[in-house]
Every structure is written in structure tokens, then in C-alpha cells.
């Protein structure tokens, strides 16, 4: 009889452990279905007027796509980390300026070309002031490319291999620890740097 009493206790402890593990997990870390799939193609204007960028041109190298915006607060947190990373490593980082001009800003009502020029100037100013970790910066004004990549919270960082396949995705600001312990080993695994 004594032993039988242990059964509910064991079950209860099991339940507590199960729920405790569940509580420790971050519901904002959603596994991306794009891992192992080709990175969606796009063709977007860069910060340099008249220039455009497409991921196609980075075939043959391992690179990072960092989704950011000047209005994004946690991007400010990761920015110096990315600057240091880009100085120390030969891994190209491409910046995707996600919806730089937000719908609640007065400039949102500007015609598209003026809005683009405004976004360009603001991102350029930010990068001049805080350092520029990006080899290329592109502007995704309406967020459509973001949707193709399954972006749901800036900043996000994607690792894309030589064949143009997404190998890793990090949601939220990257830290030096994540870069050195998770991203760099992955870069090496896929033959980069």
C-alpha cells in the first residue's frame, strides 16, 4: 500500500518537470520551416542610389542576412556586436532594412521614390554614426521580402550557405556568445571563413 502511494507522487513530479521545462522555453523562438530550404530570391534597392542587390550574386559564399531597422530598439543592442564581428571575420553580412519607414510616421505618406530616399538617408546616417557592419544594405520598404523569409520580429539573422540554402536562423539580437558559439561553427561547417 505504501508503494502505491508513491505512484501519484511520481506522476506529480513528472508533471511538474514537464511544465517547468515548458515554462523555460521562449514561445517567441518559433522553429523556421525555411531551414534547409533555398533562401527566397529578391531584388531590392541598396543604400547606394541606383544600385540593386539580389542574393543570387552571393552564390558560392557563406553569408549572413541581418534583418534590422533604425526604429528597432533591440537592433541597437546588437549593432556593436555585429560591427565587431564584421571587423574580425571574413563572413559577409548583408543588412535588410525591414520597413524602415513605419506606417505611423508622417513620411509614410510620401510618394515611393521620396520615401525610399528618406529611408536611405536615415539608415546611412545611422550607419555612419554607429559603424557599418554590412557589406551591402538593402531596403525592404513594404516588408514583402520579410514575409518571404518568415520575419516576425526584428532583429533576425539568417545564415545562408554557398548553394543559397538557409542553414540557421536566429530571432532577436545576436550576442557575441551566439556568434562565436553557434553561428561561426555553422559558418565553418558549411565551408565559409
Amino acid at each position: 500500500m505504501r508503494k502505491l502511494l508513491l505512484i501519484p507522487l511520481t506522476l506529480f513530479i513528472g508533471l511538474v518537470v514537464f511544465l517547468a521545462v515548458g515554462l523555460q522555453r521562449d514561445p517567441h523562438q518559433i522553429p523556421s520551416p525555411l531551414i534547409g530550404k533555398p533562401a527566397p530570391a529578391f531584388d531590392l534597392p541598396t543604400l547606394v542610389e541606383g544600385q540593386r542587390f539580389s542574393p543570387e550574386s552571393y552564390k558560392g559564399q557563406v553569408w549572413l542576412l541581418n534583418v534590422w531597422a533604425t526604429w528597432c530598439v533591440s537592433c541597437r543592442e546588437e549593432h556593436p556586436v555585429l560591427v565587431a564581428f564584421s571587423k574580425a571575420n571574413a563572413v559577409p553580412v548583408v543588412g535588410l532594412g525591414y520597413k524602415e519607414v513605419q506606417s505611423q510616421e508622417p513620411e509614410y505618406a510620401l510618394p515611393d521614390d521620396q520615401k525610399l530616399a528618406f529611408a536611405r538617408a536615415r539608415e546611412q546616417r545611422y550607419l555612419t554614426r554607429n559603424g557599418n557592419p554590412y557589406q551591402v544594405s538593402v531596403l525592404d520598404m513594404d516588408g514583402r521580402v520579410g514575409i518571404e523569409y518568415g520575419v516576425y520580429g526584428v532583429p533576425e539573422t539568417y545564415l545562408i550557405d554557398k548553394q543559397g540554402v538557409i542553414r540557421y536562423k536566429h530571432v532577436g539580437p545576436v550576442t557575441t556568445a551566439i556568434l562565436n558559439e553557434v553561428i561561426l561553427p555553422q559558418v565553418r561547417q558549411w565551408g565559409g571563413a
Partner: protein
Amino acid sequence: MMRANASWRVAVLAALWVGALWGMTGARAESAQPLAENPVVERRLVAIAEDLRCLVCQNESLASSRADLANDLRREVRGLIVQGKTDTEIKDYLVARYGDFVLYRPPVKGSTVLLWFGPFALLGLAVVVLVWVLRQRARATPAQAPGLSEGQRQRLDQLLKD
């Protein structure tokens, strides 16, 4: 579900009404979205989006969320409806980008078996344990009524006879 639909209809009607009033006075709200250009499309949009999760505010449906991303995704879904895509195609489009997590009704497959059938398995287990315990007890009771000493039992018999 029915109540949610009804309140949505009321909300859309109210929005249309307010919009009409605004139009009449010539005032323009700067964030006014083309809410119901085509009522058929809007109805389908709401029906689909109610089964989808907003990824920013995870306890809200895509239909009711006011997050910026939800707005953009509704715009995309609206576009797909206009293109004549089926509900399944539209859901597949979102799942391909955001995973099963966008669905409030995840599909039955290897990784979701526990989610779908776990509660029934637990219920079954509980019933089995309950039946077993009740049987054990039924077998144990008549032999020796617990808690009564010999003297008490004699007194009880005495009382019952009187």
C-alpha cells in the same frame, strides 16, 4: 465561434458607417485602411484569418490583431483571395513561411500526435486506474469493515437489532 462572427460583422458595419460619415465630412484619417472594398473578399479573409495565429501577439488571431505584421499578412492573404487561391493554398503559403505555428488547428502528424491524442490517452489511463482502484476497494470492504474495533462492532449489531 458564432458570437465571434457576429461581433465581427457588427465591427465591420460600424467601421463602414464611421467611414461613410468621414467621407461625407470630407475629413481623411491618415491611417484609414481600405477595409471592405469587396465584402466577399473581406468575409473570406476574416474566416481564414480567424484560424491563424498572429506571430507578434501570439494569443490573438490574425483576424483580430492590430500588429503591423498582422496587417501586412492580411494584405497578402487578401491578395491571394483576389488571385482566386483556395483556403488550403493560402494556409500552405503561410505555413511555408512561418511553420505550423501559425495554425490554431495544427495538422495531425508525427510531431503532433502527442498534442492531439495525449489528453485522450491520459483520460483513458485515468479511467483504467479508477476502475482498478474501485474493484480493489469493493473486494476489500466486505471482509473487514475498517475503523471499527471488535467491541464497536458488537455494539453496532446490538443497536441494529433494537
